[in-house]
């Protein structure tokens, strides 16, 4: 990168010297990360028999099985719930981000830390906290009953509602943070110019602020959606077997049915989908950074 790199080689350092530093980590990751993923992918192309995995024959039947109505139905629920969470998060995070950027640096840091706490607390602990609020005799149902608003408890968890609440809480920061960054990087002159040209509050938001922060919002939303799709502990504890999602099903297939070829096929499918989505999010974000920066304005 700098000129000094060349000097190191100029001083006669051996060619293999960098390998001494990068190879240990490279080998550990190749053994403990790449190999297992490769191995699992290979398993997904073998048939499952009573005796275990039949490694002598190759098949696509595991992938074909994923299209069965039972599996496809659970995939559809997972997509639907993840999408609801993502849209809900967008609607809730935008006003919060708009308010926070107007605060003093201290205030911004304070609130960002508060919104970051769910990410910093263990996912199992969070689910437990929500079950105290949402369960049949949890705080919400107790309070509503005491106030005479409801007679019998509402079902707020062990169904899709529980998953939506838990995931919206847990993955909120991944939309808020990029949104906050985009909003605080916005040139205040743009809003001022729009106001000067006669635009009012809502118009400024709709025609100036929103379009300029849209790439950051989209990138955050895609990441949020990806994490919702592959979350395990939250949907397992707040949704359970009544509202199975793909990751929960993958747990049952791998550890209860012990059908590893099918389990691997599910893993490969999930990996492909999330890599595709992450790539999409990176593209959206880089598209945004190219467009938001006014030409000639960057130092």
């Amino acid at each position, binding site marked *: 990168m700098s000129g*000094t*790199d*060349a000097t190191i*080689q100029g001083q006669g*350092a051996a060619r293999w*010297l*960098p390998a*001494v*530093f*990068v190879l240990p*980590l*490279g080998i*550990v*990751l190749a*053994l*403990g990360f790449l*190999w*297992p*993923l490769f*191995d*699992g992918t290979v398993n997904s192309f073998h048939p499952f028999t009573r005796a275990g995995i039949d490694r002598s024959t190759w098949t696509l039947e595991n992938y074909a099985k994923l299209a069965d109505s039972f599996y496809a139905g659970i995939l559809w629920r997972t997509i639907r719930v993840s999408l609801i969470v993502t849209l809900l998060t967008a609607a809730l995070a935008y*006003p*919060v981000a708009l308010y*926070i950027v107007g605060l003093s640096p201290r205030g911004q840091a304070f609130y*960002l830390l508060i*919104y970051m*706490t*769910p990410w*910093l*607390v*263990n996912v*199992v*602990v969070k689910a*437990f*906290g*929500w079950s*105290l*609020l949402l369960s049949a005799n949890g*705080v919400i149902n*107790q*309070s509503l009953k005491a106030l005479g608003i409801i007679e019998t408890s509402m079902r707020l968890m062990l169904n899709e509602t529980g998953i939506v609440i838990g995931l919206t*809480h847990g993955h*909120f920061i991944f939309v808020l943070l990029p949104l906050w*960054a985009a909003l605080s990087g916005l040139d205040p002159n743009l809003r001022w110019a729009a106001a000067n040209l006669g635009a009012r509050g809502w118009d400024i938001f709709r025609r100036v602020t929103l379009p300029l922060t849209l790439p950051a919002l989209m990138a955050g939303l895609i990441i949020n959606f990806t994490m919702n799709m*592959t979350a*395990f*502990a939250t949907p397992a*504890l707040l949704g359970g077997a009544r509202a199975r999602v793909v*990751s929960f099903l*993958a*747990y049952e297939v*791998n550890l209860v049915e012990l059908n*590893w070829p099918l*389990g*691997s096929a599910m*893993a*490969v499918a999930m*990996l492909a989908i*999330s890599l595709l989505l*992450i790539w999409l999010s990176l593209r959206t974000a880089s598209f945004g950074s190219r467009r938001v920066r006014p030409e000639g304005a960057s130092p």
Partner: protein
Amino acid sequence: MILRVFNWVMAAVMLAPLVLIVWMSFTPAAFFRLPTTEFSLRWYREAFNYPGFLNSFLLSLRLAGVSAAIATFLAFLAAYGLVRFRFPGKGALEAFFMSPLLVPGVVYGIAMLQFVNSLGLYNTFWALVLAHIAIVVPYALRPIHAQLRAVPEDLEWAARTLGATRTRTLLRVTFPICARGVLSGFLLAFLISFAEVTVVIFMTGPAYQTLPIRIYNYLTDQIDPTVAAISAMLIGLSLVLILILDRIGGLRPAAK
């Protein structure tokens, strides 16, 4: 004005489940009934008297300590190689070192379950260590890499021209200068490892239940305030680690 109230409500929702856990952990009743003003340490006593939780806590500490230490050591070497040398394929290698971030825990957990079984390492400590190193390496690598890039190379050259060997320079000059980045990397790696649920739940055997897994299994069975006491202590522990990280600037790249 509306925005301000909305922000307060949202902030309250973010903290509500956590506040409730801490509150419940200090009440004597087996069920959480509002309003409650009584105070008791009963569930903390229960938590410490239940050997499962204590053993799992110690296992989690050991696992996070060992994997974070190994990951930080490997990440330091790798960061030094990546920052101080130029060689073909460097960009690809760096991307490879960060790639565990891209793979969902469920996917890696399934792969590790099958891999570890095929090697006969199922239900062993070192299988978990291997998985945790891969999971935490990106978190260790990032701050160390950033710190190494920020430190001028001149100091290392000064040591070399004064006759220090490369190894000696690395240990006595480079490492101390990067200590802050290394510490951030280690603490982040420790935090991530300690909190890992998904990968462990897929691949671990019955003999190695880390604390989050123990809580998970306990919750699928029953809910009583013993879990609240454990959870409250976990919240306290993350709070302490986060304050330390914030002090040494380890959270800054994440917040930007």
